[in-house]
C-alpha cells in the first residue's frame, strides 16, 4: 500500500516537472526570455485585477490581446506553425474579454470593426499553412497597431519593417525588443528588417 502511494507520488512529481519544462521551453533562448518575462508579469497583473473589474482590469484584457499577438509573432519567428496556430486561437478567445463600455460611440464602432478583422485574421492563422499564416500576420500587425493606438499598452513596442516581404511590397510587425527577428520570413531571413517606429508605453 505504502509502495503504491510512493509510486503515484513520484509519478505526480515527474508529471509536474515535465509540464513545467514544457511551459518554460522557450525561455532558454535568451532572445525570448525578455518577452516571456513580460508575458508572465502580464498574467500576474491579470490575476490580481481579475476580481476587481476596474478600469485596470479592462486595460489588462486589451494587453492580453497584444500579448497573444506577440506570441503568434514569436512562433512565426521560430517557423512554428502549430505554435502560431495555438496562439492565434488564444488571441481570438481573448477578444471576448474586451469591454467597450468606456468608449464613445464612434470609438465603439471603430473597436467593433477592429475586433472583427483581428478575429478573422486570427481564425485564418489558426487553420492555415505557415505561408498563409504569415500573409495574415502581416495584415494583422497593422490592425493590432491601430488597436494599440486606441487601448495603449504598458510596455514600449517597436514597429519593425522588412521591405522584402510579399515580393517587395514590404511588411511590418510589432516587437517588445529592438533586435530584429523577422516573423514574416523566419529562419529564411531572420535578420531582415529595421525599426520603423517606437511606440511608447502608455
Amino acid at each position, binding site marked *: 500500500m505504502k509502495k503504491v502511494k510512493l509510486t503515484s507520488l513520484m509519478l505526480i512529481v515527474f508529471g509536474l516537472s515535465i509540464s513545467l519544462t514544457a511551459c518554460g521551453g522557450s525561455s532558454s533562448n535568451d532572445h525570448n526570455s525578455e518577452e516571456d518575462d513580460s508575458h508572465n508579469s502580464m498574467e500576474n497583473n491579470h490575476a490580481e485585477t481579475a476580481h476587481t473589474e476596474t478600469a485596470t482590469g479592462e486595460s489588462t484584457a486589451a494587453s492580453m490581446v497584444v500579448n497573444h499577438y506577440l506570441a503568434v509573432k514569436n512562433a512565426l519567428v521560430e517557423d512554428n506553425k502549430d505554435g502560431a496556430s495555438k496562439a492565434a486561437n488564444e488571441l481570438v478567445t481573448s477578444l471576448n474579454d474586451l469591454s467597450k463600455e468606456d468608449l464613445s460611440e464612434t470609438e465603439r464602432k471603430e473597436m467593433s*470593426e*477592429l475586433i*472583427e*478583422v483581428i478575429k*478573422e*485574421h486570427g481564425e485564418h492563422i489558426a487553420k492555415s499553412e505557415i*505561408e*498563409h499564416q504569415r*500573409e495574415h500576420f502581416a495584415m494583422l500587425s497593422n*490592425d493590432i497597431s491601430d488597436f494599440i493606438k486606441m487601448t495603449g499598452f504598458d510596455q514600449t513596442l517597436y514597429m519593425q519593417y522588412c521591405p522584402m516581404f510579399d515580393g517587395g511590397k514590404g511588411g511590418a510587425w510589432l516587437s517588445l525588443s529592438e533586435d530584429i527577428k523577422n516573423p514574416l520570413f523566419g529562419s529564411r531571413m531572420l535578420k531582415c528588417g529595421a525599426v520603423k517606429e517606437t511606440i511608447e508605453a502608455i
Partner: protein
Amino acid sequence: MKLKGKIIVTLFIVLVGIQFIPIQRNKSDIVSKDDFIRIYNPPLSVKSILETSCYNCHSNNTSYPWYSYIQPVGMFLQSHIDEGLSELNFSEFNSYSSRMKNLKLNSIVNQVKDEKMPLPSYLIIHKEAALSKSEREELTLYINSLLNP
C-alpha cells in the same frame, strides 16, 4: 453472389433516395445594392474576370451546371459554394466595414497571386474560369488600386 446483389440494390436505393434531398440553392435574380461591380464599376475586362472566375462561388448568384442536380455531386458543390460565400461575398461587399474591405481586398490579391483562387479543383471542370498570368496581374493590379492606405 446473393450478398453482392443485395449491396447493389441497397446502393441503388440510396443513390435514388438522395436525389430527393432538397438543397438550398444560391440563386438570386436581383443585383444587390452592395454588389462589388455595382459599387466600383471596374473596367470591362476586370468585370468579366470577376463574373467568370469569382462570382459563381463568391456572390449571391451561382450559375449551376446540369450535374449539380445529381447527388452527391450537387451536395459537394454546394458545400464549396457555402464555404466560399462565408469567406467573401461580392454581392454584400459594400456592407463590410472599410477595415474589413481592406482585409478582403488584400486577401483577394494574395489568393489570386498565389494561384490558390480560383480553386484548382474547381478549374478541373470549369476550364473557362482559369486565369492566365496577365489576367491575374490585371485583376490584382485593379484590386490593389482600391486599397485604402
